[in-house]
Structures are given as structure tokens and as C-alpha cells.
């Protein structure tokens, strides 16, 4: 039996294909602005990587920001539940998850494998991965490198503006003043971590704490967050896929609840194809 989880994030799309025992394949690709048409492509990639034909996948769950644009998914589940399940499978002792995605950041509380509380910010780019992307862009440093670079700083500069746009300008001013890039970056990471921390704090941060999402790939950010949290945090080996993994796990559970016939019925109807319609309001006549 095979199950798949697709996490169509705002920035990155992740797929996990699993069987009862192990993860068979994972794929990580940029989402791109055309994500509505591309879900099937990443799925194909994952399938060929796992060597599993589409027909053999028994249950597919889509999650993430673009979860409604996966026509071949059996069910949609929010990324909050999926991250929770994924992390719980990897680290059963974790009680607090801090997920830093491209367009939002979240705090998730887990108890006995159940989602008990969550909080999220998706109103303001400050405190999200996007914030760091923008700063990396103006400073001309690769996103993958800003974390490491920031760790070299000895005197983090003080970034007083919270707004992404203002902070971007502030970073440029510092640069013009001759402040070393690593100090600016360290300051930026501190500011971002503090923003995320003050949000997640509202649901009480209890150990153990895991950081997931693309933000967790950034060691500088993780360190800054750890300092804020006040005790060590764990980071999954591949923090990007916890959502997709959780989705695949839930898919596995779902199968148990469905009888064979219905399953086959579903599989027959399913097509691995692109979304062709747009349900966007602005393209509809009102």
C-alpha cells in the first residue's frame, strides 16, 4: 500500500510517498506562481523517484496554501494538522512546534499526538520566510547562505524597524554605513526570531520544541529562536517535509477507515492532471 502527501506551500512544494513502513520518496520543488497547474508534475516526479505507478497509490492528501488545487487528492487537510502529525511521528516528545514558512509562521501545540492549540501570522510579512528572502535579496547574499553567515557575527546590529520594507531599507543604510553583512544579518535574524517568538509565546512554549518549515533550514534563525525560547530545540533532518510527511501519515490512517470497494471506486476516478479551471473571483463576471 502506498500513500502520498502533497504540501503545496506558498513558496515550496513538497511531496512524500510512503508505504506502511518507510518513506519511499520525497520531492522538494519551488512552487512558483503557476502552482495551480503544476501539482501533477511534482507528483509525477515523486512517483518515478519511488518507482510507484500512480494507480498503486491508495490515498492522497493535499495540504498547504495551495491544497485546493490538487484535483487528484482524496482529501485536503490543513498544514497545521499535517505538520503536527509529521513532527509527532519523528519526535514523539515534542509539545511545541514552530513552523516558519514562506508566507506565514505558526505555533502548534501537541498533546498525545493530538493538535490542541495553534496560532498563526499571515497578515504581515515580518516574522515569515519572506522577510528573510527579501533581505537576502537586497544584501545580495544567497538565501541558503544567510544563516551560516549570520553566525559569524560578533556584533549584531540593531534593526529597529519591524516592517519588512522598512527593515530592508534599514539594512541598506547599515550597509552604506559600512556595517559588515554578517552583523546586519545577525540583527535581522534576531528581529525576525523575536517577532516569531512573541507570537508563539501566546500558546505557551513547552519543551520539547521543534522548528520546522523552510525557516528551520536557516541555522542563524534557529539559533536566534533558540536563544529566545531559552532551551534547546530540535530540528528535523529535512524540516521542509514535515507537512507532506504528516499528510502521507494521515493518508495511511484514512485507508483503514474506508472499505475496499470505495477505495477502488476512487482510484478509478482519479486522474493525474493539471487544474484547468480558475475559481478566482476577479476572473468571474460579477
Amino acid at each position, binding site marked *: 500500500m502506498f500513500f502520498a502527501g502533497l504540501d503545496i506551500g506558498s513558496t515550496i512544494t513538497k511531496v512524500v510517498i510512503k508505504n506502511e513502513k518507510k518513506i519511499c520518496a520525497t520531492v522538494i520543488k519551488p512552487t512558483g506562481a503557476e502552482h495551480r497547474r503544476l501539482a501533477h508534475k511534482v507528483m509525477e516526479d515523486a512517483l518515478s523517484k519511488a518507482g510507484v505507478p500512480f494507480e498503486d497509490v491508495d490515498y492522497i492528501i493535499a495540504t498547504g496554501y495551495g491544497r485546493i488545487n490538487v484535483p487528484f487528492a482524496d482529501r485536503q487537510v*490543513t*498544514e*497545521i*494538522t499535517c505538520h503536527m502529525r509529521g513532527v509527532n511521528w519523528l519526535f514523539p516528545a515534542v509539545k511545541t512546534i514552530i513552523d516558519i514558512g514562506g508566507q506565514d509562521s505558526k505555533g502548534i501545540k501537541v498533546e498525545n499526538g493530538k*493538535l*490542541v492549540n*495553534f496560532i*498563526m501570522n*499571515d*497578515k504581515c510579512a515580518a516574522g515569515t520566510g519572506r522577510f528573510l528572502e527579501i533581505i537576502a535579496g537586497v544584501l545580495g547574499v544567497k538565501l541558503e547562505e544567510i544563516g551560516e553567515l549570520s553566525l559569524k557575527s560578533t556584533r549584531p546590529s540593531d534593526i529597529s524597524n519591524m516592517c519588512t520594507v522598512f527593515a530592508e531599507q534599514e539594512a541598506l543604510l547599515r550597509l552604506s554605513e559600512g556595517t559588515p553583512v554578517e552583523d546586519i544579518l545577525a540583527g535581522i535574524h534576531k528581529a525576525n526570531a523575536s517577532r516569531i517568538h512573541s507570537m508563539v509565546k501566546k500558546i505557551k512554549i513547552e519543551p520539547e520544541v521543534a522548528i520546522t518549515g523552510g525557516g528551520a533550514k536557516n541555522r542563524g534563525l534557529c539559533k536566534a529562536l533558540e536563544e529566545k525560547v531559552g532551551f534547546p530545540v530540535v530540528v528535523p533532518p529535512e524540516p521542509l517535509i514535515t507537512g507532506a510527511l504528516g499528510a502521507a501519515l494521515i493518508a495511511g490512517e484514512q485507508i483503514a477507515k474506508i472499505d475496499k470497494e470505495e477505495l477502488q471506486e476512487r482510484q478509478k476516478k482519479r486522474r493525474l492532471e493539471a487544474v484547468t479551471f480558475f475559481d478566482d473571483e476577479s476572473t468571474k463576471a460579477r
Partner: protein
Amino acid sequence: MSGAKSTGLARAAELYSVRGQRARELKQEGKKIFGYFCCYPPIEIMTALDIVPVRILGNMDEPITIADGYLPPVMCVFCRSAFDIGMKKSYDYFDGFVGAHACDGAERTALIWTNYIKTPCNFHLDIPHTAHNSAVDFFKQQIAYFQQAVEKFIGQKISPEALKDAVARHNRQRALVRDLYDLRKPDPPLISGSEMLQVLIALMCIPVEEGNVLLEEVIQEVRERPNVQAKKSRLLIWGSLIDNTAFTDLIESSGLNIVVEDTAIGTRPFWHDIEETQDPLDGIAEHYLKEVLCPRTFRDSGPSYQEDSEMRFGYLKEFAKYWKVDGVFANIIRNCDVHGYEVPVIKDYFAGLGLPVLVIEQDYSTAALETLRTRFQAFAETIG
């Protein structure tokens, strides 16, 4: 509006979507229209003089622009929106304006309103903060002043009979609303939260008799139609009001059925009848101060935290049981303080009942709704 008169839910939907329409028509026919703020001004007094009471609401679809020159952004967004569309002439057909010292926001908005939006008749109703007996007496006196002011404006006195009759008609409306609420008891409920909201708002902008007819039609229609709702987790909404179906639609399309709402548009104005007292004003004062359960009224504290909560929120336990609620959405319009202060307490209380609570502070704007979808879906997954 179409020539052929629609009935029942369709009519409610119409009245809901063009809110001032019916009142404007009635004004053409020579009726007087009064706008009132929040659910505290006694509409019975207006009805007794054949005035049409229209509840002042905001508009979540309309960005707040003009109000920014008068009401600072830290003020309750609902109040700001109401004032904003007031300044944009949405309520230019009012013959009277009844402000009330309900909560700070409502009070200050009303006071400032009268400086900038002129209506022939104005009254500001003071409402005490406690429900002590002396407070009820005081409130009764204020209502009497209100009555006199309206009588003077119309040029006619209200006879005790007329007032009793108005109370009876409004009580009838309350009873019908409760009947309609009963139809949400089955699982899935027979009427959706959005439909309910349309009906309730429709009631708030038409005369009471028309409302009662509408309710009877709706009840019959809902009873007779096949149940089209899907089975989903059952949600109780507590807190600041919701006055736009875009919001309830969002919730109900996220795996939740709204089955009861303890808000100023939901159960609060309708849950208790006014007692038909010798002097009708006694029953009216008692009702609004003691039985309209907005946290703006301070109820004397209980001997312990638990008993205090029980005294204040015991009715919610009943609600939760009666409608077989699975979870609670605590809706806080940003800067609505009287509800904001209750958040931890209400969470404690529902936790005691084993019910999870989703708290959302929202900005009273449909543009910002979509981003809430994930929150509702995740909540549905938590309780599902």
C-alpha cells in the same frame, strides 16, 4: 426589488442584502424611521409609536476611510465602520438616532455621531453598569425619558395599552426566533448559520409585524424542505457580533456548522421575553439590564472563580448541551474590549466543559477573511 414579492428565506436574503431598502420604502409611505446602536435601546417604545426601529450595523465590505478623520484606529473596528458608512450617507433616511452607553465604543461613537451626522430626533440612553435593583430603577427612569423624547417628537403619547401591545408583539418575535433556533438542533441542522444571519438581520430593519410574518414563513419553509446541510462539527459562536454572511459562509465551508451564536445579533436580543408587568417599563428595564447577556454589564462577583464563572456563563453550558456543540469560536472584533477581557475566562469555562475554543481577533473586513480559512479548517480538524 422585484415586483413579485418573495417570501421566507428568499425574502430574508433580499432584506439582508439591501438593508435600508424596506425602511426607505416605509419612509416614503410616511412612517418614521429610527436608527439605534447595539441591542440595548428598547425597540418596544419605538414600535408603540409606529416608528420603525432599524439597527445600525457596519459594513465589512467597505474599507473604512472617512471615519479615520473622526475615530482613531484604536477604536473598535465595528463602531468605526458603522460611523464610516453613516458619514457616507448609508443612514440618511433616519428620522431619529438612538445612541446608548452600551460599551465604551458604542457610547463614544454615538456621542461623536451626533456632532457630525444630523437627525431630527436624537436620544442618548444611559445604561448603568451593574444589575443592582437601584440600577434597574435608574435605567427605567432613563427609558421613561427616552419615551418622553420620542413622544414629543411624534407629537403623541404612548398609552400603557399600546406599550403592552408592543411588548407582546416583540415577545412573539422572540418566541419565533427561539423556534427557529430549535430547528438547528438536529444534526445536521435544518438551517445554516448564514441563512439564520440573513433572517436575524432582516428582522432588525423591518417593523415587528412584518418580521413576525417573515419568521412564520421561514419556519414553515425550513421545516418542510429536505435537509440539504452536510453533517459537520457543530460550532457555538461567542463574542463580538458577526453581521456579514461572507464570514459565516467562510466558517461553514471550512467543515463547521454554526448551530448557535451568543452575540448581539444572535441569541442575546431574543433569548428572554419581557415580563408583562403592570407598568410595562418595569419589565422592559428589567429585561434589557438583566437578561441581555453582553459582558458589558457587570454582574456581582461570585464567592470563587469557579462559581463566578458559573454565574456569568452558566447559560452557555445549557446552550452547549442543547445544541450538542463540538467546539466554540470566540470572535473578537479588534479593539472590542468588553469581549477581549473575557477571552481567558471563556476559554477556562469551556475547557471545563471539555470544549475547545478557537479565538480569533479579526479586523471586521471581508477583504481579510480568506486568510482565516486555514484557521477554521484546522480547528475543524482538531474537533472533528
